[in-house]
């Protein structure tokens, strides 16, 4: 099977677990004997010489770029990012013509003009899957005017009718239906994340020396709940709890270091910067609980899954994507996303209200049995195999396709910006 993976970002340029997952899947599929090609964007960071030749960095990136202009220019950039980037549409067409994939696996198409690209896949008739790790269909319907959506047959769910949908959570599908009114008539597979525990160490005794050791890992941003952690820590400190919080990750670290100092919790809360996945997994064994007061919209944070797999119970927002796979009180502690609820759970840990060892063991068993990478990969592979079907390569060779894409692109710009 020949698999063309299309993704906005690819390591070393990553934002979070989603891009890493894409890269891991690409490599693992290659290792399983499939012919894989990745079509992604440029990367300004130094790349290792091990970067496989089947990663093609041909696409323009119109998002996640610092110092982009605002106003009209910003809106045009957003249009290129979400709706149509003509050069990228042609790169996709050329990749299909050259590589002749049996299936095209679309990951996050935000930032590369994903709407026009998915429309092209429909026109060609190549089987394609959409790996939903974020609410891309909502982004499209919310940022692209309805008349322009019509140009790409995307005013309703028609755009996705021929796609096999792989979603990281039911939560995400529900959200897409509730906000954008898009359902996927041919169903969808829930393909949650996984935890690679090959570097995990046996968990150390909980609450060593009577201290509660919390850990958090991910992007250091408000939506990940870093403010909540700091404010909850303030309450715990005021109650004279013996605790510490170690936070790993990249993002707006300087602002939060300042914030911790101004809240007088800098002696309890420390920021360590980013660590590799392996390093993090090794470190979880020394902590008593993993803090994940992420926003409710978080489709599927990977880190709490990995922590649970290491025997470190996650304290997690009740209705984020990952929480639908963990049972409150059995594998994790679920909270409302408030400072008080987080502080109460953290205090519960510090007071010994939770049987951390039991929750840790249950979490570890669940993750090792249900969330192994191989199992995850099996499900994706099955989806690819089931969805791939013979299609006429010659359809991609219609010489007028670039002209049609050109008309649609320019018309979309013209309708939107005059």
């Amino acid at each position, binding site marked *: 099977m020949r698999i063309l993976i299309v993704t906005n970002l690819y390591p070393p340029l990553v934002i979070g677990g989603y891009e890493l997952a894409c890269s891991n899947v690409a490599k693992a599929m290659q290792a399983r004997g499939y012919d894989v090609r990745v079509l992604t964007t440029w990367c300004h960071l130094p790349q290792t010489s091990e970067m496989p030749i089947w990663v093609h960095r041909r696409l323009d990136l119109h998002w996640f770029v610092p110092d982009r*202009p605002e106003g009209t220019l910003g809106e045009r950039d957003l249009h290129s990012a979400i709706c149509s980037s003509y050069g990228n549409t042609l790169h996709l067409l050329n990749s299909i013509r050259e590589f002749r994939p049996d299936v095209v696996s679309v990951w996050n198409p935000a930032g590369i003009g994903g709407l026009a690209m998915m429309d092209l896949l429909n026109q060609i008739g190549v089987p394609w899957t959409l790996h939903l790790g974020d609410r891309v269909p909502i982004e499209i319907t919310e940022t692209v005017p309805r008349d322009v959506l019509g140009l790409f047959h995307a005013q309703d769910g028609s755009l996705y009718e021929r796609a096999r949908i792989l979603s990281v959570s039911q939560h995400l599908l529900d959200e897409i239906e509730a906000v954008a009114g898009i359902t996927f008539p041919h169903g969808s597979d829930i393909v949650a994340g996984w935890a690679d525990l090959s570097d995990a160490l046996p968990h150390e005794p909980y609450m060593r020396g009577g201290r509660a050791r919390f850990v958090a890992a991910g992007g250091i941003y408000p939506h990940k709940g870093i403010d909540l952690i700091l404010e909850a820590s303030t309450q715990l400190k005021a109650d004279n709890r013996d605790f510490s919080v170690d936070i790993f990750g990249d993002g707006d670290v300087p602002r939060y270091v300042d914030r911790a100092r101004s809240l007088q919790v800098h002696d309890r809360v420390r920021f360590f910067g980013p660590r590799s996945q392996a390093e993090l997994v090794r470190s979880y064994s020394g902590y008593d609980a993993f803090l994940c007061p992420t926003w409710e919209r978080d489709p599927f944070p990977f880190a709490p899954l990995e922590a649970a797999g290491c025997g470190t119970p996650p304290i997690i927002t009740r209705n984020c994507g990952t929480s639908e796979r963990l049972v409150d009180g059995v594998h994790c502690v679920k909270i409302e996303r408030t400072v008080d609820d987080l502080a109460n759970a953290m205090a519960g840990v510090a007071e010994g209200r939770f049987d951390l060892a039991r929750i840790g063991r249950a979490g570890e068993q669940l993750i090792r049995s249900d969330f192994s990478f191989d199992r995850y990969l099996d499900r994706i592979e099955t989806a690819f195999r089931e969805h791939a079907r013979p299609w006429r390569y010659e359809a991609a060779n219609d010489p007028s396709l*670039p002209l049609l894409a050109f008309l649609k692109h320019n018309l979309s710009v013209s309708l939107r910006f005059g």
Partner: protein
Amino acid sequence: MRILIVSNILPPKVLGGYEIACGNVARALAERGHEVFALTAAIELPHTDDPPWISRGLSLHWFHPTEVSDPSVKQWRLHQATCSDFSNTARLIAAVRSFRPDVCYVWNYMGIGGAGLLAALNAADVPWTIHLMDRIPEEIASNTAPHIVSVFGGTLHDLFAPATVIAMSEHLLNEIAESAGLRFTGDVELVPGWLDLPEPHTHLPYRRDGITRFVTAGALQPTKGIDMIVEAAGRLRREGLVFEVAVYGGGNAAPYVDLVNAHGATDVVRLCGARSQAELFGIYAESDAFLFPTWEREPFGFAPIEAAGCATPPIMTRNCGASERLVHGVHCIKIKRDVDALTDVMRDVASGHIDLARLGGTAARLVRQDLSFARWIERIEAVLARCASRPRNRSAVDDPRLEQLAYLQDMLALQMRFA
């Protein structure tokens, strides 16, 4: 030699002679045994006949089918077109790394972020030759403030300092010096427009059956003087002269259809659409004179040279680039660029007062001897070899931070211009 060619567009999409020339030179270099890789922009037209060494991966930020009125959007497009587009620079760096050229042969960079591309070549220490058929350095100078150019390597002069320069005419070099303040002091070679006609057609008798057949070819736009030709034809028709004018070229013909009508010249002026070069050579051999009242800024102009090579004397603006190579009254007729002058010469020709056979014969001999493609491709080859032989640090292309530097330059330029 391993030759990496960079050009904004390549046929079948063409705007004028620049792209056609680049396509022909690239093909000839490949046929002469060089390893060629051409990096150019994606186009909307079918191009199924592309050789495998053409990679149409660049983004094009110019020649849009629709105009924009928003000044900020115009500025943004212009910046990406002339100054820098990081995605294109990253593609060039990737091509340099994978293809490992002995020399990079740069053609028109308008629309693909010229300054960023040249800076990347300089940073990677790749010897490069630029083929000037238009005043493209001026595009950087007039659209990018000096302090922004400096981000890409000092002054405009510094940016071009490592380049070997091929220019079509002295006229063009002087214009670049005047408009951009850039005088090339290094290796400069003049390579005029050429005639690529292996089997010359025999010219048919001039003014057969008493009809004078004028011809012109080029983009349908005012700069090429099409409006003047139509007006002159209208005047001569009213005088009762027997002649016809065939206008070949792509572009929006609709305004010219009405213009021809407005000048009462529908029965003497034909708008014939675009033709291939091979077809045009046949057409020239059946025509009596080639009309080329182009703007004085015309850097060269292939078409009159090709017509002259087919023994069809050009009637051309006296100080355009191509006029450097042809002598008035010997190979061509040169005119002041106005309708009166054009009308007068066309009248003389249509009245049989000009010895077209003599002019055509001398013009054809000159062009076939001195301006043949075979001759000039050898000269180009020699220039590229000379450029490729300059000392360089070949490992510079492997510097993993080339992209980071280019990214920083791109972002900095954006900040300085738009923040």
